[in-house]
Every structure is written in structure tokens, then in C-alpha cells.
């Protein structure tokens, strides 16, 4: 009832573990798969070993999370047996990739081909890295990047876009024109929060991105804007924690729905719970397939 297809890949559920959440190892991603996710995304893989920011790097706020983890990565050449073990993951795998230059992205995407992830996500939208967002906010650079990466990849390419710009539809359109197979949106919403008593930033990095229910309406609006601009499928995410939220995201034009911060509020089995909630709503409203939800 809730199976679906995305970039010709069959999924048993439209729910996807979002990048940056739990995707550090094959074992933990498999646990997420066993808990009902239709696909899982790795933590973004970068060009060289990077520690990320000091703590506090993730913190609970009202109605969401606030983070600046800062893209920690062992580096793509430094992942031990993890890449070889990707084939053990029981659901389609989305490999998330980031770089500081087009060349970085190309090298990593090329290298990952032999490990056969189902989709490669280009993280061009992390707000928590000094040079991470320049791609995501520039239609020209995004287009160049997607073309360069497409040239070396037989695996579908899905850029992940930032809501921290005023032209997400235009950027999505550039991605589509440049050959992107899908769009993922949104990444976290940039913000600086100060501790009310100590009068210092809550996060060690100073600024960060908010996620969770607090950004759900922004995410819906951005996904609608992308839907109007492009024909390629969308993985929509931002604040989805219930079946009702997921259905709303599908109605906004997404084919798949990402869950990230919801893992905090409802536990690792949130995927199972939301799958059931979606089925119940579909029954109640007379939908037989996800495709009918528009």
C-alpha cells in the first residue's frame, strides 16, 4: 500500500532517513531500515578527514533541534570496510557527498560508483561550514557542479537544496536542466540563538541550523515552490514527525519524505510509527496507493 518508486528504485515505504542523522555506520543504518525506513542516507562523505565543530553541536530547542555539527567525515578514502559493507544494507542507500570544490565532488562521486549506492545526494546546502553553501545559493555554480558530477556518474544524482535563499525554485530548475535526477529539500534553516542567561551562542560554532516541527511550514512552502519549477521527483523533508505531516509533504509535491529530527522526538522506530499512521490515513480517506495522494 505504501510502496513507491523514485528514480526507478523500488521502495517499501516513502520514508527516508535524512542525511546527517545516525548515518555513521552500516550497522546503525540497518537498524533504521529494520525500523521501517524505505531508504537510508549516509552522513555526508567529504574529501578529507574532518572533525566537525566542538560541542555543543546539537541541542534541543522548543519544537525542534538546533545544530552545527560541521560535517564530520573520515574522508572518502578513509572509511575502512564501511563502503564495502554498504551492500549489506537492507533498503536502498542514498550516499550523501559534500566537497569544497567541484573537483572534490567529482572525485568522491566517481570513487563511490563501484560501491553502488542507489542514489547520490549532493549536499550543497550545509549552513554550518564556511564554504559549504556557496554552491547551493548560486544557480550558476550549482549547474556547473551537477553537470560535472553527472558526467562521471551512472547513479542518479540528487542535489540537496538550502532554504536559506530566495530562489529555491530557480536553483531546482538549474539542477534539472543540468541533468539532476531528483531534488532533495530542505536542509536546516540558518539561525543564531543566544543562551538567555549566559548571553553567549548556544552552539560552539556560534551559528547553526534549526530543524524539526519548527521549520515544517517553511519546508512545505519550499517543496511547493520546487514542484512548480521542475518535473523531476522530490525527496521532501523538514519537520516531518507524523503520518499526517508526511501526507501533507506528499501533497506539496514530494514523492519521498525524509525524517531527521523526528528520530529525536519519537525514537528510532519513528519510521514504523509513521508508516502505520500513513496507512491509517489512506484507509480513512480511501487512497489505495501513494500515487493517488495529490
Amino acid at each position, binding site marked *: 500500500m505504501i510502496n513507491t518508486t523514485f528514480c526507478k528504485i523500488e521502495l517499501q515505504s516513502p520514508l527516508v532517513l535524512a542525511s*546527517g*542523522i*545516525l*548515518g*555513521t*555506520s552500516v*550497522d*546503525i543504518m*540497518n*537498524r533504521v531500515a529494520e525500523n521501517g525506513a524505505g531508504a537510508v542516507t549516509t*552522513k555526508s562523505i567529504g574529501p578529507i*578527514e*574532518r*572533525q*566537525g565543530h*566542538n*560541542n*555543543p*553541536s*546539537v*541541542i*534541543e*530547542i522548543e519544537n525542534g*533541534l538546533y*545544530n552545527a*555539527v560541521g560535517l*564530520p*567525515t*573520515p*574522508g572518502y578514502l*578513509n*572509511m*575502512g570496510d*564501511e563502503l564495502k559493507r554498504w551492500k549489506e544494507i537492507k533498503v536502498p542507500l542514498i550516499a550523501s557527498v559534500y566537497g569544497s570544490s567541484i573537483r572534490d565532488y567529482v572525485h568522491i562521486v566517481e570513487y563511490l560508483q563501484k560501491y553502488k549506492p542507489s542514489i547520490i545526494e549532493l549536499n550543497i546546502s550545509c549552513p554550518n561550514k564556511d564554504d559549504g553553501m556557496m554552491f547551493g545559493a548560486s544557480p550558476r555554480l550549482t549547474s556547473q557542479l551537477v553537470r560535472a558530477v553527472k558526467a562521471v556518474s551512472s547513479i542518479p544524482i540528487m542535489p540537496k537544496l538550502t532554504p536559506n535563499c530566495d530562489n529555491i525554485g530557480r536553483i531546482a530548475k538549474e539542477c534539472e536542466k543540468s541533468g539532476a535526477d531528483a531534488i532533495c529539500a530542505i536542509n536546516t534553516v540558518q539561525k543564531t540563538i543566544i*543562551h*538567555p*542567561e*549566559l548571553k*553567549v551562542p*548556544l552552539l*560552539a560554532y556560534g551559528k547553526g541550523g534549526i530543524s524539526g516541527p519548527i521549520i515544517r511550514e517553511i519546508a512545505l512552502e519550499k517543496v511547493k515552490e520546487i514542484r512548480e519549477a521542475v518535473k523531476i521527483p522530490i525527496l521532501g523533508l523538514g519537520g516531518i514527525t507524523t503520518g499526517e505531516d508526511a501526507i501533507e509533504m506528499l501533497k506539496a509535491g514530494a514523492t519521498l519524505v525524509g525524517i*531527521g*529530527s523526528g*528520530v*529525536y522526538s519519537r*525514537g*528510532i522506530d519513528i519510521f514504523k510509527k509513521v508508516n502505520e499512521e500513513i496507512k491509517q490515513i489512506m484507509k480513512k480517506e480511501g487512497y489505495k496507493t501513494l500515487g493517488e495522494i495529490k
Partner: protein
Amino acid sequence: MQTIHKIKKIIRETPKSVSLILDGKITYQLGQFIMLWLPGVDEKPFAISYLDKDEFRVTIEEKGNFTKAISNLIIGTQIGLRGPYGHGFEPKDNSIIVAGGLGMAPAIELIKKVKNSTIIQGAKSKEFLLYLNDENLTKLIEKNKNKIVHCTDDGSFGIRGFTTQVLKKLINKQTKTVYTCGPEVMIKKVFELCEKKKIECQASLERMMKCAIGVCGSCVCGDQLVCKDGPVFSSEQLRKMKDFGKYARLKSGKKVALSEYFSYRDQ
């Protein structure tokens, strides 16, 4: 968001560790951990080593930048706190508590909750035995008819030898549960001994902690999250945790041998 606590007292415990007495009330379950935040420096996980009505104690080993900075603080400094987090100990009487080095810190609250049990406390030498002259602890142990056995690597206090050697002698069919906290090499040996004797083990582990709330994946050990599923794990969980006693991840997420992780962490 972090709550703010004032340092009321600083106590030198061993040549390498200090205790902070912080003000404030905390609702805490045995074995849980808190995240202490020193703005501008870092935020790290610690056990609560004693809990009172309006104050609590945290014992910190001076190892990396953060712990060295914290041990240099002065009375009255405000520090931030998130938590307590995680899944803790389930106290059962007629048990054994094996605490190595700083692993004695999370054992104190457990000692309050168990009866007719034995604590095996080990350290490399006498000066590193935590709370050795703490009268409160002595009273606490006596109150619940518990007893304590000390051991040191160099024999400078108590039995000469390792906690695991003492455990081997004391563990028997009447032992309900073995609780353990300390270096993972020791924990692993304690666990293996428990498996051999078919006795339940509850072990408190540590890994690189970032979010502390089960989302960032930094503290994975096998398919378990030390922050959320742990830090205290049961025998059933430990049996399935492929990385336990073998691998841990650095801040970057790179998987390395346990020994490399501990030397990295101590820098």
C-alpha cells in the same frame, strides 16, 4: 537548552582528578549521564558521582583540553548542563560492582540503591583510588550492609592485582548481577567472566559523544547508541555489539581500534 549551575566547591580527589560540587536540583536515574558545557571550550559527558537535595557532585579526570580547563575553574563559575540522558543501571541486591579508576564515580549512586553487595574498586596505585577517605561513602556502604574491596596494580593499597582477578574469586552462583564501569578492556574481561559463569552483567560504556540525544550517530557501538540505548548496557545487548571491546569512532567518525580511540581522546 542548557540549565546553568554554579560551582560551590572544588575537591582534589587524585593527582589526576577533581570533583565539582554544583548547585541545583537534578532528576536523575541511576547510571545516566549529563553534558557539562563550558562556553568557549566544549561540552562533554559525565556521570553524577553523588546526588543531594540541592547539589550534586561530578568527578572529572584531567585528560583533554576540556577537562583540564574545567579543573582550573574557580568557585562561583557558572557552567551549563544538559540532561541527564540515557538508560541506566537497574539495582539488584546481592550483586558485585566492579569499578576501575574513574569508573568509581557512577558507582556511588548505585551503592545507595543495592544491599548485601560487594564493591571491587581498583586503580593503578593508592593515590588514584577515588573517595578513599570519604567518610560519607564509608557510612553509605555500611548502611546497606555492602562491603568494599580495594585493589591496586602496584599493591600500594588493598590487594595487589586487577579488579578482574578479585572478581574471579568473589563471583558465585549467588551473585545476582555484576555492574561495571571503567576502562573498556576491564569491562570486556568482566563481561566475559560473567558470560562464563552465566551471571547478568550491566556495563557502562563510553564513546565520542556529540548530541547525547540519539540523533548524530557519533557514539555508535555496533547498532547501539551509547547516548540513548546506553550508556549502561545489559548482557543481551553487549553480546550483539560487534564493536564492544574492539572499535570506537573518532570525532570525525573514523573507525579505529579501541586503544587508538582512548589515546586520541586523552589528547
